[in-house]
């Protein structure tokens, strides 16, 4: 299994070629169209080839109810779904909703944490692609504008 495979396939590059290339040459796998999309459905279509996802309670999305600061919103996604290929974070009301797309390689558990930016209150969607389908769960995170703090 090589870096970038799942998203590169969408770009129509042959898998055999990819497997033969040294890893450093594969940076182009960054899915530019998905990251440029201005809607969540557009991003999903570009990234995964479909905007259809199956709601799943086997995905745990841990985000705050009210973000202390929209610039740093802690997020953890874990799932008990098996054979996970990728986990993506979509912030519906961000100008470019796709925040990140993680390719999960063999050996790596589907448990990812990061910190994201949110411009305003929005649903945050965790999208999990497995070998059997595309699943998701969403939660709303409220973003308030402060001024003090610290």
């Amino acid at each position: 299994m090589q870096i970038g495979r799942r998203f590169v396939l969408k770009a129509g590059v042959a898998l055999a070629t990819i497997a033969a290339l040294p890893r450093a040459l594969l940076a182009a796998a960054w899915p530019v169209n998905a990251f440029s999309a201005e809607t969540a459905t557009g991003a999903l279509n570009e990234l995964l080839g479909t905007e259809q996802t199956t709601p799943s309670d086997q995905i745990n999305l841990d985000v705050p109810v009210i973000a202390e600061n929209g610039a740093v919103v802690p997020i953890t996604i874990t799932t008990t779904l098996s054979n996970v290929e990728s986990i993506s974070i979509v912030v519906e009301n961000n100008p470019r909703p796709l925040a990140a797309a993680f390719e999960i390689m063999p050996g790596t558990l589907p448990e990812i944490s990061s910190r994201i930016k949110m411009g305003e209150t929005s649903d945050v969607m965790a999208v999990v692609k497995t070998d059997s389908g595309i699943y998701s769960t969403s939660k709303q995170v409220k973003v308030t504008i402060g001024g003090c703090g610290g």
Partner: protein
Amino acid sequence: MRKAAAVLGVIVAALLVQQNALAGPEEDRLAFVAYFESRFPEIPFAQFANGIYAIDSDARKQWLEIEEFPPYEFAVERGNELWHKALPDGQMLADCFAAELPDIRGQFPRFDVASGEVITLEVAINDCRIEHNQPSLAYDSSEMIDLTAYLAFEARGTKVDIRVPEDQAGALAAYESGKRFYYSKRGQLNFACADCHVASAGQWVRADRLSASIGHTTHFPVYRSKLGGMISLQKRFAGCIRDVRAKPFELQSTQYRNLEYFLSYMSNGLEWNGPGARK
């Protein structure tokens, strides 16, 4: 009659002493602690060092997630390198400080009899540099912040124990000046520090919850998510003063150093827990 007058005089003098004692720093501090403990009976004393995260559980969870790997660790690492790098004359910054590494942070702020002023950690670092013919660091330079972040980190777990020596009249005057600053309203919004951080601690102002003043000085410098960078305690003072629409003072001005002296004394007994992370 004369005897009666003498007795009265002694009583009056005793009362005056009593009066002075009541207004002394330790009595101030005990009243301060008692006030916050009665306002927040569910919060253990030691937790006040964590500011608003002692009070707000949703915010606390997010803060703990940042603390999993806080961005101030880069500042601590850089500060460690700077601290252990010899000055051009071969001397070390550590040679200026008569204390073990974990105890250096806690020596400040202190009152210096010779200059009649409060010396903060930042001032002490610059005094040391000047002694070794090095230019002062700007108080909000990354070098200064990194050094103080490192010393704060090394001091973790030691207790705040700021002294206002009774036999140094200037020390009490500096403390009193800081106390007056803290309780005086200023700016177009006409707020005192105490208006927000005593009477209204825990309340919401727009989208923010106000922290309690006890513990305010234990955890600086702080990585602020809002700024994506580190700020010093006095830079935070300046931010608050700007928020009430008053003109901020210069960093390490007499006003801020005295305020830091007073506020640090109010946190006696808590642990030094810097550097910190705040939103």
